[in-house]
């Protein structure tokens, strides 16, 4: 029975996906849909197959920008969350700032950053990703740091544990799964922000730039192939951070 369910959960989506692609191909061929509306999956696949190295290189560059942004935004987010958890004033000051930052359309800052850091550097893209990452990591970490159960707080007091001992043995381990939830949410944001920031200028590389230049040279199948590359990149970020989150959540039942 278990084998059958596993097969159904794995096989069913694959079958559905193939069926959808086949239908798409059929519609494009039968109704003679023009490539600028939508190219056929076979044409996209061919475009992908012709230049896999270029697509991979662009995806890696955008991925690197997203990763730098993810790291930078996470470090700053965690540091501020720890400060806010420890010092009440910091919490009161940062709360409205973070709320304000959360409603700013962050990619809109990209053109300004390109002027600030120079149009030949990747800094602006990495910074846009970092700001997008900062918010979910900060909020989740702060929430995690406040999840210590009263019984554990009492226990640490009963053991006359020092503040540092209590932090190390209870507060940080409790917060850890929340930090990883923040990473998982932030990872998609990092990829999206780094990619969309490329639309607004900067060096002529990365998946975002490749998509715009392929469209402007009327190579629609190639543009879609780059979109496929972007999807794979986002999936990779999501899957890795999801695996880390699941790992951090082992043995977290209440006891």
């Amino acid at each position, binding site marked *: 029975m278990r084998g059958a369910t596993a097969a159904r959960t794995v096989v069913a989506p694959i079958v559905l996906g193939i069926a959808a692609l086949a239908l798409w191909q059929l519609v494009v061929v039968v109704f003679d849909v023009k490539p600028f509306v939508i190219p056929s999956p076979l044409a996209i696949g061919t475009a992908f197959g012709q230049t896999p190295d270029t697509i991979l290189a662009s995806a890696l560059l955008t991925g690197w920008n997203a990763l730098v942004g993810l790291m930078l935004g996470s470090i700053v987010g965690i540091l501020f969350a720890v400060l806010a958890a420890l010092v009440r004033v910091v919490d009161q000051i940062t709360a409205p700032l973070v709320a304000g930052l959360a409603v700013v359309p962050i990619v809109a800052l990209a053109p300004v950053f390109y002027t600030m850091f120079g149009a030949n550097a990747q800094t602006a893209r990495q910074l846009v990703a970092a700001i997008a990452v900062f918010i979910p990591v900060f909020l989740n970490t702060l929430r995690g740091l406040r999840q210590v*159960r009263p*019984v*554990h707080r*009492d*226990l640490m*007091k*009963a*053991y*006359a*544990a020092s503040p540092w*001992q209590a932090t190390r*043995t*209870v507060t940080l*381990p409790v917060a850890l799964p929340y930090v990883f939830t923040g990473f998982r949410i932030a990872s998609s944001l990092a990829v999206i922000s780094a990619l969309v920031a490329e639309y607004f200028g900067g060096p002529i590389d990365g998946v975002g730039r490749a998509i715009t230049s392929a469209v402007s040279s009327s190579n629609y199948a190639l543009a879609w192939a780059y979109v496929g590359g972007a999807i794979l990149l986002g999936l990779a970020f999501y899957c890795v951070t999801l695996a880390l989150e699941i790992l951090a959540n*082992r*043995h*977290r*039942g*209440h*006891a």
Partner: protein
Amino acid sequence: MTDLPSTGSAPIGAPAVSVTGVDKTFSTRSGTVTALQDIDLTVAPGEFVSLIGPSGCGKSTLLRLIADLDSPTTGAVSVFGKTPRQARIDQEYGIAFQQAGLLPWRTVRANVELPLELHGAGRAERAARVTELLELVGLADFGGSYPDQLSGGMQQRVAIARAIAESPRLLLMDEPFGALDEMTRERMQTELVRICAETGAAVVFVTHSIPEAVFLSNRVVVMSPRPGRIRDILDVDLGRAGERGDALREDEHFFASVSAVRELLHGEQAARGAVRGVENR
């Protein structure tokens, strides 16, 4: 008062716990609530004392005062002749709560080891002691398990092993078996009696089960609510801890004591209505 462990030993003959003239009030939005009023209680070294009463009688609050997790509004508490704060810093007591309060990301061994680790015991010493403790609570085969892999009763046994890890002379227990089913509960009671006989620790035990209090205790302190007061203290003494077994539950002295505690608890029933939160089973 300092944060350093005191070097001098407790005064000779000092009681394990001494509570004199203690009041405890809490300020809430709707005014002050008197949780405890005029509490006097002495627990001798090695004595097992239960606090019993309906919800809101302040029995858990009293335990928290002894543990220095809260401080009294007026009056004085001393533990082995020291202030509760000093006794806590010197680790004079072990404590167990209604929730096992294990750290779910640590194995059973690492949970039992926690107090030893916090207080700087060496690795070899810790390992030896944990093996001994797991043997004592009958969990020798579960050292590598995680708390979420254990039943509620087993988790509570881990918590008890943790509480007695440093061989404290005083054990404070706040309804440790409250969340367990009746059969597990009786088995845990028998085990606790055995463990106390082996360690010789004094115990202050909060419960709202009458048979549990009678089975375990040398004395049962009956409390009444609003404000929390000690209504009466009943000597039970059903024999030395080592001699108490399950046969005792069928003994007529046991039933007589259960009835006596029940009558004390329900003393003001006519005036106050039914006593809530007390299990009569």
